[in-house]
């Protein structure tokens, strides 16, 4: 029996081997390099980083924009996924539309936003033509355009994650709640929403991690005064050739991502104690 079980372990071996060689070992060597740059153990890399006002600003912006984008994705994704899962007659088409943005590269999508949000883009043309503003607004190269880019980039992940759990919720639960006296709203809040918690967490972790680590979108839709951690890593590594600072920033990113994922998970367990 145990011998047979061992044989099945061979199935995961290739994947594990790949990850160990190309991910875990490099990761640990990066981690070690931040504590042991040249001579012995030191916390200098982190102390100087965290002490820097510039880093604090970038860090704050990264987390803030990622959280904001996650929230917007959840707010936009939830009704869409619910509609597709429950009411849509053209499910395949709807799914295709929801996932469609994922078929184009983030670079191309960022360029599209440059066209749309530019001084002569359709948004500004509309704002001026409708008389809301006298002259074109600057919608590009700031936190607004970055958030728009993030949301479009990661909304499909949120919708897909939510669809996964929503499809597994039997339709008769709402009917059962109704027959017991619950209005549609209260059936949604007490039954459907808690059961979606696990999908909401998966989606949120994907979106948050995606936003934290995205590089092209903040690079193309942001500006030098709206740097985020990922562009900062690039700058340290490629422009300033400061590999140990770059590694330290990367470590901070990993820690933050893991921390936030943990918080999301905790929240979902508060909503639904059975959520995985």
């Amino acid at each position, binding site marked *: 029996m145990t011998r047979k079980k061992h044989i099945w372990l061979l199935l995961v071996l290739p994947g594990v081997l790949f990850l160990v060689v190309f991910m875990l070992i490099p990761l640990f060597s990066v981690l070690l390099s931040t504590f042991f740059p040249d001579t012995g153990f030191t916390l200098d890399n982190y102390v100087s980083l965290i002490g820097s006002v510039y880093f604090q600003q970038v860090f704050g912006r990264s987390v803030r924009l990622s959280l904001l984008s996650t929230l917007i994705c959840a707010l936009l994704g939830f009704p869409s996924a619910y509609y597709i899962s429950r009411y849509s007659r053209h499910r395949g088409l709807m799914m295709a539309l929801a996932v469609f943005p994922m078929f184009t590269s983030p670079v191309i999508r960022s360029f599209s936003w440059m066209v749309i949000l530019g001084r002569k883009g359709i948004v500004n043309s509309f704002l001026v033509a409708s008389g809301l503003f006298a002259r074109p607004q600057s919608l590009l190269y700031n936190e607004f355009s970055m958030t728009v880019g993030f949301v479009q980039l990661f909304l499909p992940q949120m919708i897909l994650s939510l669809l996964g759990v929503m499809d597994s919720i*039997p339709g*008769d*639960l709402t*009917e*059962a*709640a*109704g*027959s*017991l*006296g*619950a*209005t549609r709203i*209260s059936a949604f809040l*007490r*039954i459907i929403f*808690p*059961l979606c918690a696990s999908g909401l967490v998966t989606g949120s972790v994907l979106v948050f991690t995606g936003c934290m680590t995205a590089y092209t979108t903040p690079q193309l839709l942001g500006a030098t005064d709206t740097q985020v951690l990922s562009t900062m890593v690039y700058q340290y590594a490629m422009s300033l050739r400061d590999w140990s600072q770059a590694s330290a920033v990367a470590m901070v990113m990993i820690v933050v991502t893991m921390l936030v994922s943990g918080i999301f998970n905790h929240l979902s367990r508060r909503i*639904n*104690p*059975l*959520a995985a």
Partner: protein
Amino acid sequence: MALLELQHITAGYGKNIILRDFNLEVEKGDFVSLLGSSGCGKTTTLRLIAGFSEPEEGKLVFSGRDITHVPLHKRNFGFVFQSYALFPHMTVYDNVAFGLKMRRVPKDEMRRRVLEMLELVDLKGFEDRYPREMSGGQRQRVALARAMVIRPDLMLFDEPLSNLDAKLRVKMRVEIRRIQQELGFTAIYVTHDQEECFAISDKVAIMNQGVIEQMGTPAEIFNGPRTEFIARFVGFENFFTITRQQDMWQTESGIPVRLSSSPARDTCKACIRPEDVQIAGSGSQLENGVPGLVTVATFLGRMVQYNVRTDIGEFVVKTEQSQVYSIGSAVRLGLRENKIIPILS
């Protein structure tokens, strides 16, 4: 006056009409079953009553009040689902308490009523379990308790036992009947299981293609099916035509048959169950005797089934007698008068 009336209901999904000019009356305190094969409209009827869907035409009247457009959460009908439909993220206690929370019942009264109901369905001590930690039978009892705790004006059951194994089904249906008689609620029960439905109900409505073919007590239907469909449903397999000659009835081949009840028409169909047909050697004297030839003999264990060709059609006979008639042998079938049922329509 009936407690619940469905008047001239038309309902369906899109262009697919399932019920057309459908009528049903349910008396207070009755346990009524809707019986029929899948697609006959029984579940559609139940869902209409529950308020999960609305009819395109017709009226639902409950206690003299038109409830056709009353939304489901205001009807106060308990519903038990085939799939149980328990809330997976809530404990047994919270599942059962759900309806009382919606009604803003005070905490201590709620606690008392939930525990009382769990005791009634024999689930005392299971309050803190989650549905996934329970067996199918236990889940169904939670579903039952959850629907009953709101003291519904009407209990609706949608094939509640069909996901359980045979032994448990029999146990649960006795349980449901016991609780119904204890609490005295009115119930409508949908099933495709004939035995289950006859065992549990005061009245049975047999549905076929969107209409009720016959409604009556189980005994009435079992012993006096009105149509061939119903007759086949309750185990009749032999059908033949009879005609009136003055005061006598006879088969098409001229063999006289005596009937215990006399139909008003001059020609009609009659039927008899395979178990009620007597079989004997060709020389024997039998009441309403019909000569025939054995074409198929099948050993069924306790019984032997014969297919016998006669002048008035092919007969299926099931007999417990040990005498075996081989294929091709000439026999006599006895159609006992009190076992022949004339079909009225």
